[in-house]
């Protein structure tokens, strides 16, 4: 393996408290090392450039059945963004839902090296893994939808959390996944009967449970299994005005689990769960309430799910929400489904417009949250790709965060009513490059429990991004446009010690790894005739065909975890 020495770059590595100091980074055998022999090493002159760890995205729908259905639903999306092949890279399409290869290339060009695929229905896990295999250049992991999985619900209802934990451990292994994803707990099960749950204490049909029971049960299970990530939560009532109250209640429900060391829950794309006002006409931001709560408590992390004003495709396992969005949006094409005993799903093309009051306020909410939550280790940058906007719009979001001027320029073109309601003019905070590195790599890697990612300390994976930004000579807040461009086109991206992007072009294509957890419980999960007969009765797939087997994953990275049950 080659040795690489990155010389004289301004290094931003928040995990190791390095804030823009000029230093060298040495790479050997795919890891960061203390030093390399300068004669043998390939030297990268990074003087005047910004060096960060490779980006870690903790919520981006890049593969799976819903993504592929979205692709099929939207030929109009592909026609406006056709990507030609080159000698090295494959052709592809995609504006809001890029094809697999293009997804890998575009992430890599932005300096991202690890991406989490946050929503995988267990029944569709094989498909998701086949797509993940085709995404080059980035490491990936998936979160299984377990919040409405029948066996989890049954065991929580019986108050048998040990058995529930063993089932979840089995599921994590069977689907080759990394974390527990909970989407609108109880709501997806209700959607099978055409209903939804509207508060944490509504009853889930046929189970004698409430969403609160599910969230608390699975949070407990998550700690019992010693999972590296917390539960990954998409709240109830998402996308409904006034839902910030539900979000705060959800966070309050988890307060008692906090032991003072690490967070116990992650609320994802919280922008969609921070709406105040009684109805769409009185729609306003609930960001201040959420931010105040987060500033006073340390047991939660969030990601923002920023809206970027794009003609995008919304897709979520929250079927009832997507149906209400269809009813709002008028005459659009749509997909909605119930995934047997596990989840549901919905897809609708949606254009976020500056001149639409609600859309503009949504844009404002995401930024308000990022700016009002004081600790950047609690709030992470996502667009919930593709729901708020495609992932390659991230640099725009960075610009809104690090430059007040950029925010003002966009706000000026927004709906007048939204401008009046926005809290942005009162917020002076501008993110520094150090803070940007936290919300895009260091913080996300920490929240995910990926110890070797998101930093440049000795022993870390040699995932490095080098951007054409000189923090000494440029005032990034004033000259936000060139910095934004620089974030979109990394000068170098290094993945596992190999240069994959050089001078803004892909120069090497390599497969990325698929990370999954092998959770070892003390006792095995009870897989008896009762479970198998249930599969016969309620699933369309045989029990023996259900788990993902090893040959589905091209480059696996198994992480062994010892559970405490």
């Amino acid at each position, binding site marked *: 393996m080659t040795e690489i020495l990155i010389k004289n770059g301004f290094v931003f590595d928040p995990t190791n408290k390095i804030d823009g100091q000029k230093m060298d980074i040495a790479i050997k055998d795919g890891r960061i090392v203390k030093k390399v022999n300068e004669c043998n090493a390939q030297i990268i002159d990074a003087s005047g450039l910004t060096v960060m760890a490779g980006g870690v995205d903790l919520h981006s729908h890049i593969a799976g059945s819903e993504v592929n259905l979205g692709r099929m*639903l*939207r*030929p*109009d*999306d592909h*026609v406006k963004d056709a990507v030609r092949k080159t000698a090295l890279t494959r052709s592809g399409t995609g504006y809001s839902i890029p094809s697999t290869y293009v997804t890998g290339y575009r992430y890599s060009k932005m300096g991202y090296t690890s991406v989490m695929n946050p929503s995988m229905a267990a029944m569709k896990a094989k498909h998701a893994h086949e797509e993940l295999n085709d995404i080059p250049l980035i490491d990936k992991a998936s979160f299984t939808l377990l919040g409405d999985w029948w066996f989890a619900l049954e065991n929580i209802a019986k108050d048998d959390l040990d058995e529930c934990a063993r089932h979840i451990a089995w599921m994590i292994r069977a689907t080759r996944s990394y974390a527990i994803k909970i989407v609108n707990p109880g709501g997806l099960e209700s959607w099978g009967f055409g209903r939804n749950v509207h508060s944490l204490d509504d009853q889930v049909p046929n189970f004698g449970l409430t969403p609160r029971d599910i969230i608390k049960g699975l949070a407990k299970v998550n700690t019992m299994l010693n999972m590296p990530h917390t539960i990954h939560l998409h709240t109830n009532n998402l996308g409904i005005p006034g839902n910030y109250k539900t979000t705060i209640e959800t966070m309050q429900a988890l307060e008692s689990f906090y032991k003072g060391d690490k967070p116990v829950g992650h609320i994802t794309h919280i922008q969609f769960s921070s709406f105040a006002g009684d109805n769409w006409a009185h729609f306003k931001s609930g960001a201040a309430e959420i931010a105040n709560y987060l500033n006073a408590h340390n047991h939660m992390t969030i990601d923002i799910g920023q809206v970027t004003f794009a003609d995008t495709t919304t897709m979520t396992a929250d079927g009832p929400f997507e149906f209400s969005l269809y009813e709002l949006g008028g*005459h*659009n*094409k749509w997909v909605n489904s119930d995934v047997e005993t596990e989840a549901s799903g919905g897809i609708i093309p949606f254009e976020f417009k500056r001149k639409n009051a609600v859309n503009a306020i949504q844009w404002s909410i995401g930024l308000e949250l990022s700016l009002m939550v004081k600790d950047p280790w609690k709030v992470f940058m996502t667009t919930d790709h593709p729901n708020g906007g495609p992932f390659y719009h991230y640099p725009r979001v960075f610009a809104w965060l690090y430059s007040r001027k950029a925010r003002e320029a966009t706000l000026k073109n927004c709906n007048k009513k939204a401008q009046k309601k926005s809290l942005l003019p009162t917020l002076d905070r501008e993110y520094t490059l150090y803070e940007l590195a936290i919300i895009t790599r260091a913080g996300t890697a920490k929240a995910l429990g990926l110890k070797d990612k998101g930093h440049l300390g000795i022993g870390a994976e040699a995932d490095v991004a080098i951007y054409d930004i000189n923090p000494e000579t440029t005032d990034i807040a004033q000259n936000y446009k060139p910095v934004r461009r620089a974030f979109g086109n990394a000068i170098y991206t290094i993945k596992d010690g190999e240069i994959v992007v050089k001078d803004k072009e892909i120069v090497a294509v390599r497969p990325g790894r698929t990370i999954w957890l092998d959770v070892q419980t003390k006792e095995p999960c009870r897989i008896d005739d009762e479970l198998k007969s249930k599969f016969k009765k309620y699933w369309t797939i045989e029990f023996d065909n259900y788990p993902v087997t090893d040959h589905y994953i091209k480059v696996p990275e198994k992480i062994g975890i010892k559970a405490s049950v």
Partner: protein
Amino acid sequence: MITLTPKRIFDVPIQAACISVDVFTGKSVEEIKNLLITEGKETITLGDAFNVIEDSTIEMPTVVLTGDFSKVKRVGQGMKTGEIIINGDAGMHTGEKLAGGKIVINGNSGGWTGCEMKKGLIEIHGNSGDYTASTYRGTSTGMKGGLIIIDGDVGTNVGCYLQGGTIKIKGSAGRYLGYHMSDGTIYVEKDCASRAGAFMIGGKIIVNGVMELMMPTFTIDGIKPKVKIDANQNAQGPFYVFLGDLAEHGTGKIFVLKATNSALATYEKFL
């Protein structure tokens, strides 16, 4: 005036969006011959496939295509000014996204002719294929303006997602005429196959011949003696007026000639 004639019979489709008055203007014959097109997966020049002749006696911004162009796609794509005359059959996507000028086809035309067009005029002195004056697959922005006149029959899904402009069909129309249309006018002089106006939320369809099937999601609204097609032409009735598509809360109107549609007389009792 530039004249193009095919040098041979084409086996595979040719993509030639560069055949357009806008592109040819200001270029010498040599330059025009060197424009790139694709034949199947091969990239070739216009001169490889066509004889290009300039007639300098006629200064008109006109391009004449003579011969069988049914395998040549995207002629006149996005053209803003000038005139293209095709003496023969035209291929698919002719006049796609037309933004002005005029295209005359003295023959039949393929599918997607005039799709997503914004302005201008297309005259087809023959039949036209499926998806004429419609939209790219999956897109919800169809023809926005201009006029298409077809002397013969048309295929299915003509005028789908129509948002403006006028389509005059002097023959018969296939199924799903005006599917999802929101504005604009479609006039059919002869018969119309089933499911016309499915999902329509606005605009009007006028059928002078036999309407094969009136969708059950339309309701009768009245009887009108005549209907305006455009500023220059009225259709003489009386017409049954139907309102729909109610499944989409639509307010589109379908005018069906009373004289040729005795089967629809049962609707009169609801008036």
